[in-house]
Each structure stands twice: as structure tokens, then as C-alpha cells.
């Protein structure tokens, strides 16, 4: 553990130490230069800017951080991470925060995105590979928004871009199920 992480723990700020430890990143090294937010292509739609996010973590504002829409709409493009003068991998911290948010008592700051991720993982678990049409139908059955993009879907179908049936494939499915079972057991503990 780095010196900075250890110092963070001493400050008795449980949320800061939790995020620092899970991400392995030196969150207290942020000095608010705001380069992350300046380069972020999605900053305009975020309720908490990336630099503000780091400050909120330093302050231990758990609810503010875990209920933000920022952690969900971050596209993981790593622009912030490569431009940070203190080498803080901010995109990696966003991953950590999403995982913490999923297991928290709070309602997520974005409605559809966590639903999409869970539909995506369900599809991998049951089929081993992603069959795009199955994924879309599963996502739509959860969000009840059947008409959005229907016209585009038809256009893509006519261009031969939509495969109606999943490919016949059985190898590897069992192993993927085992990976998920191990993960679910771990997550339940």
C-alpha cells in the first residue's frame, strides 16, 4: 500500500479509504487542476464533474457520489486518466464507484444504464456470447420502451446487419456459467 493510501486510512475517512483501496488509486493526490473535466466529452451531461467527484470522495460524501449520474454516463474513454498530471486513473475509479453503487442501498443516478448492464450480463451468462437481437429484446422488455429505434432496426435488418437467430454454439457455455456462479457466490458473501 502506498504511503498516501496509508495516510488516507489514518484520517478515519472510511469512504475515501474504501474507494482508494478498491481502486488502488491515490485519490488524495488530486489538486483540482480540472484537466479531467476539461477533456471529458460527456462532462456537459454530468451532475458531478470528474474533478468534483474526486473532491467529494476526499470529503467522504458517499451518498452524493454513489447517487450521481456521472458514474453511469462516464463512457470509460480514459481521456481523464491519461491527462491527469498526478497519474490518477479516474476512469478506473469510476469502475470502482459503479460496483460500490450496485451493492449500495441507494437508487442509481441513471435509470436505464444499470438495467442495460444487467441484461448484457444475463445474455452472456445464458448464451456464452452476445446475440445482439436477444440483448435488445431483453433490454426493451425491462424498460418497456419498444418503439425507440424500431425504424432504425428495420433499416439495419434490411442491410443484413441483424442476425435473427443466435449462432449454434455450445462449447464454452458451461465454463462461462461457472465463472458467473463463482462471482455470484462471492458477491453474496
Amino acid at each position, binding site marked *: 500500500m502506498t504511503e498516501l493510501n496509508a495516510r488516507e486510512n489514518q484520517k478515519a475517512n472510511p469512504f475515501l479509504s474504501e474507494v482508494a483501496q478498491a481502486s488502488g488509486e491515490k485519490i488524495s493526490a488530486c489538486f483540482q487542476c480540472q484537466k479531467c473535466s476539461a477533456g471529458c466529452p460527456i462532462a456537459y451531461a454530468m451532475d458531478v464533474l470528474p474533478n468534483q467527484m474526486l473532491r467529494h470522495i476526499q470529503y467522504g460524501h458517499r451518498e452524493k457520489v454513489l447517487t450521481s449520474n456521472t458514474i453511469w454516463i462516464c*463512457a470509460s474513454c480514459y481521456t481523464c486518466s*491519461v491527462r491527469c498530471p498526478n497519474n490518477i486513473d479516474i476512469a478506473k475509479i469510476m469502475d470502482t464507484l459503479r*460496483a460500490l453503487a450496485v451493492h449500495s442501498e441507494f437508487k442509481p443516478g441513471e435509470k436505464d444504464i444499470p438495467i442495460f448492464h444487467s441484461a448484457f450480463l444475463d445474455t452472456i451468462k445464458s448464451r456464452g456470447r452476445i446475440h445482439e437481437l436477444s440483448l435488445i429484446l431483453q433490454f426493451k422488455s425491462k424498460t418497456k420502451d419498444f418503439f425507440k429505434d424500431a425504424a432504425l432496426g428495420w433499416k439495419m435488418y434490411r442491410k443484413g446487419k441483424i442476425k435473427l437467430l443466435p449462432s449454434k454454439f455450445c462449447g464454452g457455455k458451461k465454463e462461462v456459467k461457472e465463472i458467473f456462479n463463482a462471482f455470484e457466490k462471492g458477491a453474496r458473501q
Partner: protein
Amino acid sequence: MKEVSYYPGCSLHGTAREYDDSIRGVSKLLDIQLYELEDWTCCGASSAHCTDEKLAIDLAARNLGLAEKNDRDLLVPCVACYSRFKAAEKEVKEHPEKVHLSYHGNVPIRYALDFFCDDGILEEVKKKRAKSLSGLKVACYYGCLTVRPPKMTGVREYENPQHMDRLMKTLGADPVPWCYKTDCCGASLVMTRTDIVKKLNDRLLSMAMEAEADCLVTGCPMCQANLDTRQGELEKETGKRYNLPILYFTELMGLALGHKDVRKWLHRHITDPMKILSAKGLM
């Protein structure tokens, strides 16, 4: 004859079929033998690493373990898969105890664009080129995860990469300088926050047009689908005219190498590339 293992990934069996077909077609012309990994499974993509790091690493490591069984490099055409594989590779090298599956970090993972931009292959392309793409102005769009984070990708010029530009020049095309080469298109939000994706698309397409590009070239199935499919919708909302074809770099390679199926690949695009290519005398 060069031999590589091939992990197409889920998109290339669906919306990005033409990318898969053009990689296979071009490889054949360049004497590269592809061995598709048997029983490959999904890499986990964004949804796995957005949910749980360990799950993400395991889903990627399973495929890398399969590839490690033989002595070949692994060719990966999808940027999302590539990024997840490089993350798993980093994890197994730094924390081998955290990876439970049989994978030891010994397989070279090659992103398709990087692979086809190798000096040896560029030489081969130069030798076998049947047609020069001269007069075709292309905006090389690298996107985010092809170059970032450089500690995983190893790309040195990650703010202004040049390798696709070099490949395009080898084909005879004219890559234009533009400033959004590595800006994100937001593809992982395409189903959920389409509003954000459209805004990013408008920025990218408008900038490529300002740079007077005839088309945009990519090596990412998500960027391609994202930028190609929504131009009509976007035109209605912004009042602008885009009509900018979004091509895979392998399709242009096929065109320059004289592959017989180029028309079939290009026909699957929503924004029609035929008009501009015919106008330039290339089809």
C-alpha cells in the same frame, strides 16, 4: 505465410459482419492464415467491468487461456474486446494470484489495426496494391480504447496517433489532419442515453466535414455502427447535412488490393459509400 489466432468477438458475428468479412478477405490476399479460436466466448465488454472487476477479468482470461494453448499471436478486431484482454493481461502479470483460470499472460494480443500497420505488412500491401486510392480524403478516426490507456496499449503517440494515417497513405489515400482523432463517440451509451451519443456524433461528423474528409475510417465496430446508423436521424434534429460514409480500414485495404467482394461489404452500410467512391473513380 503468417499464422495468427483470431478472436472475432460478438459484434463481428452481427452488426459488424462486413468488418469480419473484410478482415478475412484482406488476410487471404496478404497470405495471413487466421485460426478462429474454437469455443470463444464473450469478453464481457463494458458491462462486466462496469459491474465487477473480477468477473470482467475472468471472462476475458477464459479466452486468453484458449489462445495460449498454441504458439500464435492473437488477432483482435474489436476495440472493446482488445481493451478487456489487455486489462486481463496486465492483471495476470501484476497480480497472478487474482486470476483463477488457466492463463499466464504469455499470448501476444494484437489489435487488428496495429497488426495491419506493422512495417512488414505495409511492405506487402505496397507490393500487392492493385489500385491507388488517390484523391480519396479520409479522416482517420482511432477512437478511445485503440490508443488509451497507453500503459495498456503501448501506443506512444496517443494524443495524435499516426499509424492508420500511414496505412491510408500506403493505399494511396489522402489522410486529412483533424483534431478529433481520439475523441470518444460514446458507443456504450447508444441504447441507454442516445441523446449523449447523438451530440458526440454531431461533433465528430461536423469536424470531419470541416476538415473536408470524404469519409471517416475506423477499426472499431462500435464507432462504425454508432456513426454510420444515425446520420439520418441527426440530420432531422440539427438541420445539417452529413452523408459521411464510415468505413472500416480493412474495407479500404480490400478496395486497394482489388478484392472481389468489396461491393458486398460496402452494401451493408447505412450511409451509402458508393456515391463518393464512384465519383472518385474507385468503384
